[in-house]
């Protein structure tokens, strides 16, 4: 990007093109209508499925039976499904597992990545090039599924939560984004801190990290979404049903149409609609990311661009 160009993102991170210049033609009515139509269609394509899921999860068994399945137009609100899910049983346990893995995993990944990114952020430091090469090389090859699987087994990580965290703890892409951001911090600031007697730990903690809050937020979200959405590692490394995270339980309940352990009686006695339970599980899976991502949205551009350009 050239320095002279405007920054078209406003402070809330929204794309803010300048007002229409005087020389530009007024758009035609048909053009405007066409644009509007495309935007509305795109928004509907994204929101309509989510609407059905959320609405159905909030209906009583009677409304769902009357609709013959999924509900589009809600009639009243019933929290039965959520009340049942959150009073124990398989789904609650799975949600707690997912939450725990996401929190510890994100913290661990962030600690490791921030340290590594800072360690590699000073050009000309000893071993800097070699270590960077070691990182970059991994973007060109993958070890392969089978050798990785055999290794995780050989390390004895099978049926432990570590198997969900350690193999995917480091994302080279995320480290490169952090590093690019750290390198953009004015060297004078870092130098003056060093002259004042601060060591690298202190510089990282008290100067670099506070200045990097936006990118730290973005990368944390990327890691957190990664852990929250992961199901494959659990499906191959865990055999204990009680340890399964939410995504895996969602596969069992919604995709394979199994009945949730602990709720089967309420469903069989006809007090609870299995469909509402399934949809409630889906809402539980989508809620955290849907709530968190708008808060970080204004920093997406920074994270994406440093990654795309310097990667």
């Amino acid at each position, binding site marked *: *990007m050239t320095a002279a*160009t*405007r*920054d*078209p*993102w406003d402070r*809330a991170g*929204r*794309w803010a093109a300048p*007002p229409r210049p005087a020389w*530009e*033609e007024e758009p035609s009515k048909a053009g405007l209508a066409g644009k509007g139509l*495309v*935007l509305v269609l*795109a928004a509907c394509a*994204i929101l*309509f*499925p*989510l609407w*059905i899921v959320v609405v159905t999860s909030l209906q009583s068994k009677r409304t769902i039976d009357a609709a*013959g399945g999924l509900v589009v137009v809600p009639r009243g609100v019933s929290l039965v499904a959520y009340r049942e899910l959150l009073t124990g049983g398989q789904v609650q346990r799975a949600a707690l597992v997912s939450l725990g893995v996401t929190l510890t995993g994100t913290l661990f990944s962030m*600690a*490791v990545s921030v*340290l*590594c990114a800072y*360690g*590699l952020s000073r050009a*000309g*430091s*000893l071993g*800097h090039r070699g*270590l960077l090469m*070691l*990182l970059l090389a*991994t973007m060109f*090859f993958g*070890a*392969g*599924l089978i*050798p*990785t699987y*055999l*290794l995780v*087994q050989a390390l004895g990580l099978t049926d432990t939560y570590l198997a969900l965290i350690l193999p995917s703890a480091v994302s080279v892409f995320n*480290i490169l984004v952090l590093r690019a951001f750290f390198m953009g911090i004015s060297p004078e600031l870092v130098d003056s801190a060093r002259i004042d007697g601060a060591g*690298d*730990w202190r510089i990282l903690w008290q100067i670099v990290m506070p200045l990097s809050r936006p990118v730290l937020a973005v990368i944390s979200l990327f890691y957190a979404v990664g852990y929250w*959405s992961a*199901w*494959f590692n659990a499906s191959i490394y865990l055999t204990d049903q009680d340890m399964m995270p939410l995504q895996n339980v*969602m*596969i069992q309940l919604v995709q394979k149409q199994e009945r949730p352990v602990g709720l089967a009686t309420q469903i069989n006695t006809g007090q609870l609609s299995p469909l509402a339970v399934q949809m409630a599980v*889906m809402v539980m*899976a989508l809620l955290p990311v849907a709530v968190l*991502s*708008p808060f970080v949205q204004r920093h*997406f*551009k920074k994270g*994406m661009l440093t990654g*795309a350009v310097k990667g």
Partner: protein
Amino acid sequence: MTEESAGQREGKPAFRLRLRRDRTLILMTLPAIALLLVFTYLPVLGNVVAFQDYDPYLGDNGFSAMFLSPWTGLENFRRIFADPGFWHAVQNTFVLFLLQLVLYFPIPVALALLINSVVRPRVRAVAQAVMYLPHFFSWVLVVTVFQQILGGAGIIAQTLRRHGHQGIDLMTDPGIFKFLVTAEGVWKDAGWGIIVFLAALSSVPPDLYEAAAMDGAGRRRRMWHITLPALRPVIALLLVLRVGDALTVGFEQLLLQRDAVGPGASEVLDTYVWWNGIRNQDFGYAAAAGLIKGVIGLGLVLTANKVAHLMGEQGVYEK
């Protein structure tokens, strides 16, 4: 790098001095490096099982079994090339890749141009927030949502049945499966893809447009001669990345739908490795298949990058 050449001119400080100066920095990188060595580099060596009749029960653990399993040379590869299922997976992989390239790739560009042309800030803000959203959903959720709309018990089949028609189940129809997979990809990530293009659009100096308009260029000509050339480097970069990644087409996504639609339509190289190795426990065979995929993939990355250099673009890494 300039700092380094300056250091060389003045004479590099002694190794031990540099070690003492930078030891904290090196120490900081160690946890990440260690994890990469263990979980990315070490398994590369594990690819030796591709040349073995690997049996995990020969040793105390999977690792020592590697030393005890009998060597079979290229036997695994011979079996793979003789398996029509493998060639079918290769074919599916490339068909899916091409479909995604043609049907998926242009959409973010078009959406970015659309968003860029919208003047009202409120409309723009809402549109962007909505479009980013699905990127953060897991594949399990995306596939399940599609099932709720298009599946046998989904809302479309439900409505059709209520009006006396026969219900349809698009999720298990092998004929349209590849389009369905592409549509899921578009739903999830097309909105996210616009960020990079919006950034490229912002780097176009506005006076270029004004000058062109003064010279009599209309809307369309300005788009063709200013906007699209400005997007060229980004489009080239993303194409290179995509081509280099051609053999990896939606592993999670396809694995989740493999049961519903059957391997005939959904098997790609990744799921082929998963099925043979993890489900059928034929580790040597699956590792060999994975190795074939890895080697071809590496070749594709290097070639794609070379082509980018030849086209005069920056490519993924510099020479």
